[in-house]
């Protein structure tokens, strides 16, 4: 048997590039793809310290939706969702993007009010959103326990029918293949260790494979962004935390939508192969250890079983963690930095997979024009000084 064709080359770094992207996860790869596709920039390298898309891109639970509360978030996440809707065709690769609907359950009067408010806000922003009462939830997802005596009674839910899941590896491979075809160098096993900054402008990156000169440097390093930015002398309002998820053994199809519950900190979907994919909230402490504590998984399973008694005999196959970069307002930080030619795209925390195409789109524009894309303007680092926060803790509280 021969090895299947490789989807991208494995080049050595050139001495210099117009743009160097630090981090070969989903956002770095999408940024590279759109730099070429939308802006004609192809003298570009993506530097990845490990292997392509082995960070959070490989570890997330792939929930995609755009039903965020505030106008700024709705705009950027909805832009991303629209891109998802055409992305398999555009990249000529089946991303297994499945718009099966995302339910966000309400368990208390506060949840109900927040959910209804969000539905109204979403509709005003052209984002599809519906409010379901408990009986409608039961009809939409019959295996959810809507009994009023449940530990976490279901009082209703928001539903975004256009939300769903995709296959994360396919997304990474499809973006990598296209970027490579444009001549972009995807360089694995290349850790950025520092920056050459002269006269307030970045000139080069220092890496485990030598110095690489760069016209512009774009961070797309998720959980490690603070470590890198610090080496450029830029303190960022980010904290790195483990975020855990797990899969069950393979089951017959039993759940055909995504169910999330902020209040009890659990969310569940069933992947195409048949495993249940479940996630929880972050581990409380700062960590770069790519592992979390088991009591977090236990609490998450307790909540899941309250919602889905039918899963009581399902066995966990494996659990894992990624390191997510959490910002104070649960919104990303996108744009220029105090160092000229150095850009940041971080703080997507627990919910950046859904933003992969949208983030790459606006970041590529921001880099190419040295001017934030209109959708990225509100997400600039300056908002922590001006106070114009985009507080999405309500929409993003649980990890997804």
């Amino acid at each position: 048997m021969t090895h299947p064709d490789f989807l991208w080359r494995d080049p050595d770094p050139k001495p210099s590039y117009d743009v160097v992207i630090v981090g070969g996860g989903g956002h770095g790869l999408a940024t590279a793809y759109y730099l070429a596709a939308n802006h004609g920039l192809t003298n570009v390298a993506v530097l990845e310290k490990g292997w392509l898309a082995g960070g959070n891109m490989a570890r997330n639970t792939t929930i995609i939706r755009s039903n965020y509360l505030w106008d700024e978030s709705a705009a950027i996440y909805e832009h991303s969702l629209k891109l998802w809707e055409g992305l398999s065709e555009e990249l000529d690769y089946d991303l297994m993007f499945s718009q099966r609907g995302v339910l966000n359950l309400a368990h208390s009067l506060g949840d109900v009010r927040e959910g209804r408010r969000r539905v109204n806000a979403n509709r005003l922003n052209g984002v599809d959103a519906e409010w379901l009462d408990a009986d409608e939830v039961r009809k939409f997802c019959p295996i959810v326990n809507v009994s009023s005596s449940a530990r976490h009674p279901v009082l209703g839910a928001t539903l975004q029918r256009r939300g769903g899941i995709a296959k994360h590896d396919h997304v990474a491979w499809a973006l990598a293949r296209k970027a490579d075809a444009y001549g972009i160098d995807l360089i694995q096993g290349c850790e950025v260790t520092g920056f050459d900054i002269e006269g307030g402008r970045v000139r080069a990156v220092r890496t485990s494979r030598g110095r690489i000169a760069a016209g512009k440097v774009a961070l797309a390093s998720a959980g490690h962004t603070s470590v890198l930015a610090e080496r450029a002398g830029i303190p960022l309002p980010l904290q790195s935390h483990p975020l855990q998820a797990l899969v069950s053994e393979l089951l017959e199809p039993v759940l055909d939508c995504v169910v999330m519950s902020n209040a009890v900190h659990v969310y569940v979907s069933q992947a195409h192969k048949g495993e249940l994919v479940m996630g929880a909230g972050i581990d409380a402490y700062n960590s770069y250890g790519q592992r979390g504590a088991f009591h977090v998984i236990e609490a998450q399973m307790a909540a899941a079983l309250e919602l889905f008694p039918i899963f009581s005999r399902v066995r966990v196959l494996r659990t894992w963690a990624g390191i997510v970069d959490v910002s104070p307002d649960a919104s990303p930080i996108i744009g220029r930095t105090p160092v000229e030619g150095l850009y940041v795209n971080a703080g997507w925390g627990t919910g950046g997979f859904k933003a992969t195409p949208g983030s790459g789109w606006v970041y590529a524009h921001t880099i190419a024009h040295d001017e934030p894309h209109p959708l990225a303007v509100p997400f600039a680092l300056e908002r922590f000084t001006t106070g114009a926060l985009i507080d999405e803790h309500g929409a993003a509280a649980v990890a997804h």
Partner: protein
Amino acid sequence: MLLIDCPHCGPRDENEFRYGGQAGIAYPERPAELTDDEWAGYVFRRDNPKGWFHERWFHAHGCRVWLTVERHTVTHEIRKPR
């Protein structure tokens, strides 16, 4: 799960505690004189090192005292808390 050695109660499981983030963040001495950027630093920016980190833990289900713990953010090793 971490085992945190509370100076008052002895070694206890992590889930008896609440996390409080970076230690040693004092309220500004002259708040009226702070620039907006200095306020941003005080309110929003915290160290996020890959390595040793001084952090606060609150023994919520124990003595209800705040401790400062030195913990490594990769190995999760803890040095004797104070």
